[in-house]
């Protein structure tokens, strides 16, 4: 197919693909006064920021913004380090039965989340972790580790082992070799995993629904799900504005890092 034809097909489909996003923004920007559910396609005014402010107050959304930010930053960061440490142990330090240990860690990603929900809910209630930020951070970290270990093991396999041996000859400790040599070398892969996992944590519904209750612990997406069933009618524009607020960080992050991210993923293939 010719270039022009391909480009036109892509542009037409791209525009169609963005129609739902257009509808979201246009209607999230209507003030409750001008909002009518019968004129969805026509923009009226631009009160998006006012609606977002309203949404932040309406149902505890504001309370959950900060904790969600903590979850989406801390858990993937810890998971990336823990996964890198595991990959380092297996590949560079040549841990005995390293592959078996890798399978143990990676196996954690194979099962549906549904298998761990109830015991976590039950166990968390018993040890006082239910409805706490620490509890949420722990579970998000554990869930992010297998994928991180997978990519990092693959990445370190591509590093020549004499890099490690040379560092040993220089008298470096294993910790130092890990922190000063292997981690910096892997920075692009680390960031790629971090972005993916941060997006996952930010967008999580199920764990938030199961393991939290209070406005300040509950993740933002879970709060949004609650809002959707509570409010309607004229307040629909407020709910849609909340949807924009919740979606904005991941969309911006994703678009900014699109090229880099594809590269990081491609690295992870080997």
């Amino acid at each position, binding site marked *: 197919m010719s270039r022009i034809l391909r480009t036109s097909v892509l542009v037409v489909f791209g525009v169609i693909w963005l129609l739902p996003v257009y509808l979201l923004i246009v209607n999230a920007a209507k003030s409750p006064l001008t909002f009518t559910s019968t004129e969805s396609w026509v923009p009226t005014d631009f009160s998006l920021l006012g609606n977002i402010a309203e949404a932040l107050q309406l149902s505890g959304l504001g309370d959950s913004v900060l904790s969600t930010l903590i979850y989406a930053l801390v858990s993937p960061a810890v998971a990336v380090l823990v996964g890198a440490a595991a990959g380092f142990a297996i590949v560079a330090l040549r841990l005995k039965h390293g592959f078996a240990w890798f399978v143990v860690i990676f196996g954690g990603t194979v099962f549906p989340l549904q298998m761990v929900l109830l015991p976590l809910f039950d166990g968390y209630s018993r040890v006082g972790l239910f409805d706490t930020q620490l509890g949420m951070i722990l579970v998000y970290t554990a*869930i992010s580790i297998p994928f991180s270990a997978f990519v990092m093991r693959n990445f370190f396999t591509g590093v020549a082992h004499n890099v490690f041996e040379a560092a040993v000859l220089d008298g470096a400790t294993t910790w130092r070799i890990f922190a000063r040599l292997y981690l910096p070398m892997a920075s692009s892969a680390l960031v790629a995993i971090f972005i993916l996992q941060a997006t996952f944590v930010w967008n999580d519904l199920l764990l938030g629904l199961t393991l939290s209750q209070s406005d300040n612990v509950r993740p933002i997406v879970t709060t949004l799900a609650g809002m959707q069933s509570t409010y309607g009618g004229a307040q629909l524009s407020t709910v849609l504005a909340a949807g924009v607020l919740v979606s904005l960080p991941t969309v911006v992050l994703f678009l900014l890092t699109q090229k880099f991210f594809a590269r990081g993923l491609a690295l992870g293939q080997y």
Partner: protein
Amino acid sequence: MASRGSQYQWSARGFIAPGVILVAVLLYLPLLWTTFLSFTEYNGLGDPDWIGFGNFAEMFEDPGFIVSLLNTLLWVVGTLLIPVGIGLALALLTWNLPGGVWLRVPFLIPYALSGIGVGLIWSFILSSNGALDQALGAFGIADTPRWLVDAPLNTVVMIIAAAWQGVGVNALLFTIGLNSIPKEPLEAARVDGATGGRLFTSILWPMLRPLTAVVVGLSIVASLKTFDIVLGMTKGGPGGASETLALTMYKETFVNSDYGLGSAIAVFLTIVTMIAAVLYLRQQLSKKHEF
């Protein structure tokens, strides 16, 4: 080498320990507990009563569960056909196209949205007299179906919403696959006059097969776990008509407090996921030896 490696064993254990401990305590222990609970009658109070396969028998006698099972099957088929197919088409269209990276952006935006965000937008579009009905009305089509109420139409429109979200990442994965194809066979094929469909069937498709296995495998596993979009758009309703296994499991456990039955559904879901993943990957990986 072996002796030099072995002197780091203690250090290596220290490095791998945090990962193993976190995964074991927060993922494997719960996994075992759910498996145990699936053989018991338990409502969270007192002790679980061992009832063997009772929950599993109850599951298959429940018409609601069968509906949920069929819906999940529909999700698997739909998610395979639509997003994987369109994703591949997009990757091929943007491949080696100047500005292709930018032309892919509209398709990647929905991928970064949460399932609830997608559900929110599409509920707005599909509600009665919503944006879609208004658009159709402008073309003189007034008699529209009740998109989110009539089954199985509601599941079909939700699959389309999920496809809207998932196409971009499939396109991205296929693009990575296309870019990793060695240049020589491509040049050779072009010199021989292979273009378009011929180039695709004889060179690109076979070369993409390992990646297709990954994409298809990921899609099956993800579609079996469908939860967010359904909760956001229909809550599984009306009357459970659009429930998926993941949603039924959630309801039995956390709404009806039937922990044993909920666990049994989770175990069933896991077994199906495992079988699908193993069967598909085995078949695909054995084909790989053909070239």
